[in-house]
């Protein structure tokens, strides 16, 4: 079984659009330069405005970063007190800029990220300390999605069922590879070494699973609202 699977994969071209095909989990470290500011924005000018207390500068800062900051905070801390937390973070950023903590205005992006991360990490530590004291077992259902959103739950369940169909249709060896990567947290490097795979074969397997997931999702959910979600996985590669 393994031999056949490996051969089949070897003959397929690399589906990915990007060249180079880098590497295992730890070696793809060709770090990009920091993203450019949005069109028409100059970090130095924006920082200067904030330092001089210009209201327009603060509004601009909020406009540029509020959604990104909100996304980060929401992913780590959830929706609770979200707006208050965003507000506090912006106050901190503005205050720090005014205090001269940002020496190089071109590093504004990295600076905002650092402030946000510190804030979130501090809050997580607080929550952890509080929860460590709670030792009683509780029987909350395992819900990866918002428990107050039955539609999101149904969609998540549907995705799992489709994925099970995908996984039922592949070889036990391929399933083990995916299990090692997605469930056991093993690195691509370790999996390739222990399962005698090339990195290309490994990526091809993951790519195929994703394609299949998209196709099956589309077929199964053609007339349903979930279709929009799956289109994104299979249509554009």
């Amino acid at each position, binding site marked *: 079984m393994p031999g056949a699977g490996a051969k089949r994969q070897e003959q397929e071209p690399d589906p990915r659009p990007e060249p180079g095909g880098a590497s295992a989990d730890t070696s793809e470290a060709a770090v990009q330069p920091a993203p450019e500011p949005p*069109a028409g924005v100059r970090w130095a000018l924006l920082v200067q405005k904030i330092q001089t207390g210009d209201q327009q500068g603060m509004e601009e800062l909020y406009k540029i970063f509020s959604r*990104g900051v909100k996304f980060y905070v929401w992913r780590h801390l959830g929706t609770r007190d979200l707006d208050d937390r965003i507000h506090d973070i912006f106050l901190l950023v503005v205050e720090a800029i005014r205090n001269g903590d940002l020496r190089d205005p071109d590093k504004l992006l990295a600076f905002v990220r650092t402030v946000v991360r510190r804030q979130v990490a501090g809050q997580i530590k607080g929550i952890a300390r509080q929860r460590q004291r709670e030792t009683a077992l509780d029987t909350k259902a395992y819900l990866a999605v918002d428990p107050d959103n039955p539609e999101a739950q149904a969609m998540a369940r549907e995705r799992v069922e489709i994925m099970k169909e995908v996984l039922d249709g592949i070889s036990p060896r391929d399933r083990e590879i995916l299990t090692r990567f997605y469930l056991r947290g093993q690195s691509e490097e370790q999996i390739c070494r222990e399962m005698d795979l090339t990195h290309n074969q490994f990526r091809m397997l993951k790519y195929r699973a994703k394609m299949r997931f998209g196709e099956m999702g589309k077929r199964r959910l053609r007339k349903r609202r979930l279709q929009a979600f799956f289109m994104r996985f299979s249509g554009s590669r």
Partner: protein
Amino acid sequence: MSAVRIGEKPGESRNHPSEETLERYVMDRLQEAEEACVEEHLLLCEECRGKVEETEDYVRAMQTALAELEQRRSRAAREGSETGRKRRWGLPRLAWAGSLAAIAAAIVMVVPRNGKQDGPVELRLTALRGQAGISAPAAPAGRRLVLSLDIEGLQRRPAYEVHLVGAEGEVLFDRTAVAEAGSLKIDLAEGLPAGRYWVRVFPPGHAKVPLREFEFLIE
């Protein structure tokens, strides 16, 4: 971080992280410098924030499906070997302890704390599973149990969420655990009844893509 240029507006040049990079971001497997790049990009890029959410949904579906299929298979295997199991449980205590030691050498260490026979037992669960088909580590039922979960290789975070999942996929508890020296410790003062269990480690907060899963038995 490999990158592709997509969805650029005129006059705008943006290096979006590749799908693979976003997947590793979601799974907490980027090195710090790469993670910084991705997060800075996400601060400004709505399109990639959407992709992160999609990737999270995909990875979560994959993990849940894999876990459920695994549970289904191990349930089937358990039912198939029920007779053999009963016989094994009937072995004298010393022989049972010996077989446990053999498993311990491979993937787990079961350590009576303070050397006391009735003291807490520490079950060290590591992410490295050399071979397929190896038995899940085991610990005795009804004893105070300290689970020590290996989080080496994950992004350093101050704390993680840990779910203990029973054989039917039900969450028995969720708890926030503070990371210490490459591991998370979960103290189960009451111990656990016999059965098969899974421990899932999540990043803290809202993101619910499990980073790692460990399986163990209570016998």
